[in-house]
């Protein structure tokens, strides 16, 4: 499943210059996203199958590897059904608007030292800004379908994204404090100790908020099958449905790539070539997302909002100031000993803050 990326041939100042760099990386990124999405779908379906004591798709190709390809061809040849009452233009544009920003995220993700489309000095801020636009596509889909389930699903999505945006960006600020730069490449270069060890609480917050932001399973209320049929894409079929499917997995890959870059040391690693490390780490993070999906039941909407506003956000603020103090005390490089301290802080904070919550049968009150 791994794309053959001739990364060694791409220093930042590639011979032939600007235009070749643009052409090469544009094609590479699109191919990368499509192939990674196929890999992710395969991992998700096979992994979930194994975790649920069944086989998963195993007939198309060796180990069912060609299943995503078969699905793509099938869905391409399906009839395109648009409801009569739908807002046709909005309905048609929604998947396009949802897909484009997800692709744009990958423009600043480094595959190797300096091997990225554009090394923006505001890299991670750009990611935060661009990734929010995908929500607009989802809301357009819900609105344009003229279906009550779709509209409710889209509304829920907006509410969830708005709520989980803050712990997400605050967790990023923690990383930026330690790295001292917003550029994705510099953040990777700063990670002599992977930030997952120096920022365990930040990682936990980012992972949870990231899962909620892209509506992965414990938080997938916008397409809760038992309540809303299929949520915002109830009225979609054929290729436009496939695009939403693609967006969902491309977002998961994007979040995995950002987690890899911010917390797991990006492309850094021994023996293997850097781009391969990067892809392996993305798949490891994605596998954890699949694992949480199969393990945890779906939360209720009030629990979803309470988790964001009453649990993740205060912890993110505390994490921010603890990190700031540590950076001020050790301005050059954080010492190894801090790893144990930070993990202890994380455990204490999470346990103590959880005591405020009465989870379980009743409504959640704080």
């Amino acid at each position, binding site marked *: 499943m791994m794309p053959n990326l001739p990364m060694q041939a791409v220093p930042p100042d590639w011979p032939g210059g600007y235009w070749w*760099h*643009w052409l090469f990386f*544009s094609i590479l990124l*699109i191919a990368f996203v499509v192939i990674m999405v196929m890999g992710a779908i395969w991992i998700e379906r096979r992994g979930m199958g194994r975790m649920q004591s069944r086989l998963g798709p195993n007939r198309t190709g060796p180990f069912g590897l060609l299943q995503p390809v078969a699905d793509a061809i099938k869905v*391409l*040849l*399906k*009839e*395109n*059904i*648009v*409801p*009569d*009452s*739908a807002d046709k233009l909005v309905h*048609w544009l929604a*998947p*396009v608007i949802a897909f*484009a920003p997800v*692709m*744009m995220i990958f*423009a600043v993700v480094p595959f190797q030292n300096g091997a990225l489309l*554009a*090394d*923006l000095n505001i890299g991670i*801020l750009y990611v935060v800004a661009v990734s929010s636009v995908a929500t607009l596509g989802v809301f357009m889909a819900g*609105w344009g*379908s*003229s*279906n*009550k389930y779709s509209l409710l699903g889209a*509304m829920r999505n*907006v*509410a969830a994204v*708005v*709520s989980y*945006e*803050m712990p997400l*960006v*605050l967790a990023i600020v923690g990383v*930026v*404090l330690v790295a*001292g730069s*917003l550029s994705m490449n510099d953040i990777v270069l700063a990670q002599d100790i992977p930030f997952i060890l120096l920022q365990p609480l930040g990682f936990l917050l980012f992972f949870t908020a990231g899962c909620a932001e892209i509506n992965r399973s414990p938080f997938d209320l916008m397409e809760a099958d038992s309540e809303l049929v299929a949520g915002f894409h*109830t*009225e979609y079929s*054929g*290729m436009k449905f496939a*695009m939403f499917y693609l967006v969902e997995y491309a977002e998961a890959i994007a979040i995995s790539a950002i987690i890899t870059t911010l917390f797991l040391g990006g492309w850094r690693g021994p023996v293997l070539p850097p781009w391969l490390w990067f892809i392996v780490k993305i798949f490891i993070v994605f596998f954890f997302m699949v694992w949480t999906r199969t393990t945890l039941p779906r939360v209720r*909407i*009030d629990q979803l*909002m*309470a988790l964001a*506003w009453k649990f993740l*956000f205060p912890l993110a*603020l505390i994490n921010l*100031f603890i990190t700031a103090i540590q*950076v*001020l005390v050790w301005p050059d490089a954080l010492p190894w000993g801090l790893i144990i301290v930070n993990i202890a802080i994380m455990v204490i904070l999470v346990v103590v803050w959880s005591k405020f919550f009465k989870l379980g049968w009743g409504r959640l009150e*704080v």
Partner: protein
Amino acid sequence: MLANYGLIGLFFIIVALFSLSMPIIPIVLRYLKIVPSHPGPVKNSTFECGVETIGKTWVQFNFHYYFYALVFLAIDVLVVFLYPWAVQLRQLGLFSFFAVLVLVFIVVIGYVYAWKKKVLEWK
């Protein structure tokens, strides 16, 4: 540095063309008689669980995220101020730390007030 933003803009053109082309492919295939197209009044009706949809969808209904959106707005603006501070913390030193502490404290007062007023409850 500006050249990098040019790359982003050019990449956006490619991405826009790519994502626009994807829904267009089935339209082309439909004219080639590969993708079927047999619309009907029942098939094109809005999906509902067994009955026909009652009333319009685009009506006003009460959905409780307006308060969240207001609190979100205040906090999101705060976070935008935190980013440049986070980059330069080592140069700015302890004074900036306390300055940001005061800034965050002011916003947190509003946040605690919203919590106590039960604005953060999803009803």
